[in-house]
Each structure stands twice: as structure tokens, then as C-alpha cells.
């Protein structure tokens, strides 16, 4: 069993989700609140990455981040190591590809918030940032959780982009989804089945725990 691959996948999924929260929450909040007319353009662009087949997106990202590209070259000068075929490269690609799965549900959740609750918090002297964390985030929780779950699960299963950027290097960039793919391709269905079963069981446990725990929150919702 390729435990290394499983660990790497979980790390990648966790890191991707964390980055998406950090980037996606402010972006989504802005999208939900701005009255700027160009908002629809940004929303449409955010959704675009998933329109391309992952391998193809991966190829373009590979070119964009490769050592021949300005980004890749700059990175290499700074860190003495290329961006592609590294965990950092994988992370960037995963974040890009999973962006819509996080930002869209976040933005939808913020859009339906009752603004007056925010106003009430402001009137209590609570700053905008604190209000965001203490009022908006808990109230938008079902949508935020959806974004987290979709990003995390999708990164676990992602394969095309990761293969392209990562190069399938055991212990470094071979994720469990690539491992399973390889097993299927090698007609080793038994091994593929075992690895899939472990991945599914792990994911199921994580998801179940998440949903069971969130019930507590959700009970707060339906404002009677």
C-alpha cells in the first residue's frame, strides 16, 4: 500500500483548502458585496478553470510555471529550485483548479446573508474584520463548508493537473489518485481496489465527522 501517496494527497488537499480559504473568503465576500458592474466578469473568470480538461489545464500551467517562463525563472532565482515537479508547484496548480469549487459556494452563501446583522455588529463597536469572523462566517457556514468539502475532496481525487505539474515522483509528487490510476492502467485491479477502498473509507470518515459535527451549527440557522 502506498501510504506515502496517501499522506501526500491529504497534505496537498489540506494545504489547497487552507490557501483557498485564505484567498477565496475575501474574494467571495467582495463578489457578494460589491456593486461594481464588472463583478460578473470576475465571477465568470473564476469559474473558467474547470471548463478545461484537467490535463490540458495542467499543460498550460506547466508551460506557465516551467523554467522557461518568467514566473518559473523568477521562482528559481529566488528559491534555487524550479516550481514544477515540486509540492509548491502542485499546490499552485491545485489552488487554481479548485478555485471555483471554493469561491462560488462562499460567494453564494455571503450573498444571502442578512446585512442588518452585520450592521448590528458594527453598531456594537465590532470592527469589520471581527464582524466577518463572528457574524458572517458562522452565518454563511453551510456554504463555506460546502466550499471546503468540495475543494478538499476534489483535490484528493484530482489527477490530470497534478500528474502534469507533479511528474508522478514517488514520495514527492505522486498523489494517491495517480497511484490508483497507475494501478488500474497496470491492470492490477486488486491493488487499485484496495487503494481506492482506503481512500474512500478515509474520505467517508472525514466527511461524516464534518457533517455530523456541523449539525450543531446548522441548528442555529432557520431563523424562526
Amino acid at each position, binding site marked *: 500500500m502506498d501510504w506515502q501517496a496517501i499522506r501526500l494527497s491529504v497534505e496537498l488537499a489540506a494545504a489547497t483548502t487552507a490557501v483557498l480559504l485564505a484567498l477565496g473568503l475575501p474574494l467571495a465576500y467582495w463578489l457578494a458585496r460589491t456593486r461594481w458592474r464588472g463583478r460578473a466578469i470576475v465571477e465568470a473568470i473564476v469559474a473558467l478553470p474547470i471548463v478545461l480538461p484537467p490535463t490540458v489545464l495542467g499543460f498550460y500551467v506547466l508551460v506557465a510555471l516551467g523554467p522557461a517562463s518568467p514566473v518559473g525563472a523568477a521562482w528559481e532565482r529566488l528559491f534555487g529550485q524550479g516550481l514544477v515537479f515540486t509540492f509548491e508547484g502542485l499546490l499552485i496548480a491545485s489552488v487554481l483548479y479548485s478555485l471555483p469549487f471554493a469561491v462560488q459556494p462562499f460567494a453564494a452563501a455571503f450573498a444571502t446573508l442578512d446585512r442588518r446583522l452585520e450592521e448590528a455588529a458594527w453598531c456594537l463597536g465590532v470592527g469589520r474584520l471581527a464582524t466577518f469572523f463572528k457574524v458572517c462566517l458562522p452565518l454563511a457556514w453551510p456554504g463555506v463548508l460546502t466550499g471546503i468539502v468540495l475543494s478538499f475532496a476534489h483535490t484528493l481525487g484530482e489527477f490530470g493537473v497534478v500528474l502534469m505539474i507533479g511528474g508522478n*515522483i514517488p514520495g514527492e509528487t*505522486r498523489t494517491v489518485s495517480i497511484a490508483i490510476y497507475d494501478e488500474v492502467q497496470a491492470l492490477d485491479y486488486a491493488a487499485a481496489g484496495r487503494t481506492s477502498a482506503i481512500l474512500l473509507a478515509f474520505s467517508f470518515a472525514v466527511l461524516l465527522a464534518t457533517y455530523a459535527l456541523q449539525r450543531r451549527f446548522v441548528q442555529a440557522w432557520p431563523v424562526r
Partner: protein
Amino acid sequence: ARAGEITVAAAANLKYAVDELVAAFRVERPDVEVKVTYGASGNFFAQLSQRAPFDLFLSADAVYPARLVEAGLALDDAMFRYATGRLALWIPPGSTLPVGSLGLAALRDPRVRRIAIANPRHAPYGVAAIEALTAAGLREELSGRLVLGENVGQAAQFVQSRAADAGFIALSLAVSPPLAGGTHYVVPAELHAPLEQAGVIPQRARDPAAALAFRDFLLGEHGRAILSRFGYGP
């Protein structure tokens, strides 16, 4: 009206050769329409096991066809060898790596930080690449620099994008128009087991007659000539 229509499932490394074969076949048999689907042989195997509507399967190796014959899914319980692939080491245009003079030993150069190969777990060219490196006594030294593509096509892309500095790919690919600008070194055949490529006509072929006709064309003189032009051995 056409006498027949067949769909060919062909290994990705055959892309350029088979496109030309089809064009030539069309001249000979305008009554048969040939559609080709390129992809991973492993996927085709899985699909044929579920009776995919392919009339001809040209695998990248001899294992998948053999397994289909074993499973009783091949017409007449027969597979056919149609070519032997050759492994090539390819470096991108502009690279000054002296592959011409040093051969595989050129990979020792410290400028070579990444070497792309197809995944040896399931891709025959990947297996051959590992065998060649082993035979050349470079495997230990270079294994840390390997990156694995899904197939030789992806290995080529790694090099093309300069993400990798050299790659083991099929000779047929190295001589194809998109890669012709680079430099390639044909790995001596003795360094790896022969890359036999075989095919079958699936039992459920919708038009076995037309499929047989295309197979015979492929195995015939005209066909072999085209294949050899694309770097395939007999």
C-alpha cells in the same frame, strides 16, 4: 454508400503513423470509412473487456492483446504483431547536451536535472527506458532525477516545456513533425527487451470484414513501409 465503417482504437504513440496509414488505406479502399481513437492501451483494454464498439485494437505492447485473447474476447482467438517500437532519447531544440557523441552517458551532465520517462508501471516505453538505463549502468545514479509521464506523449511534453531536460520517448514520436526540431538519440535495441506491438480484432467487431481488410493492409507491404518510415521496426 460505404461498404463498411470501422473504429480503430490505437495506442497514442501510433498517432502520426496511423494517420498516414488511414490516408493511404482510403485511397485503396474508398468504400471503407476508418475512424481512429488514440489513447492509453490500458484504457482500451478495460473498455474492450466491457465490449467497447471497436473493430480493431492496436496496442502499444503485446500484453493487453494477449490478455484479451486469453479472455476469449478476440476474433479467431488470434492476435497479430504489427511492429516493433524503438526507444529514443530526445532533447529539446537549443539544448547543447552531447547526446550524439556520448549517448546515454550524456545524462550524467549536472545540467540534466530532470529526465522524463513514461510510467514503467504500465507503459512499455517506460519499462524499456528503465531497462536501458540499467544496462548502461546509469540507473542508480539517475533514478532521483526521473519524472514519470502517463505515457511517452506526456514525457515528451515535459521536455518540450523545458520542465525536464531530456526524455525517453518512442522513436516514432521523436521523428514526428512537432518534435523534429529537437535532437534524438536512438537507444540501441540490445539495451532493452524488444518493444513488440500487437493488436487484435475484438470478437464483437461490428464489421469484421472491413477490420480484417485494414489489418491486412497494415501488415502488407505498403503498411510496413509507412510504419518503418515512422521509426518502427519490423
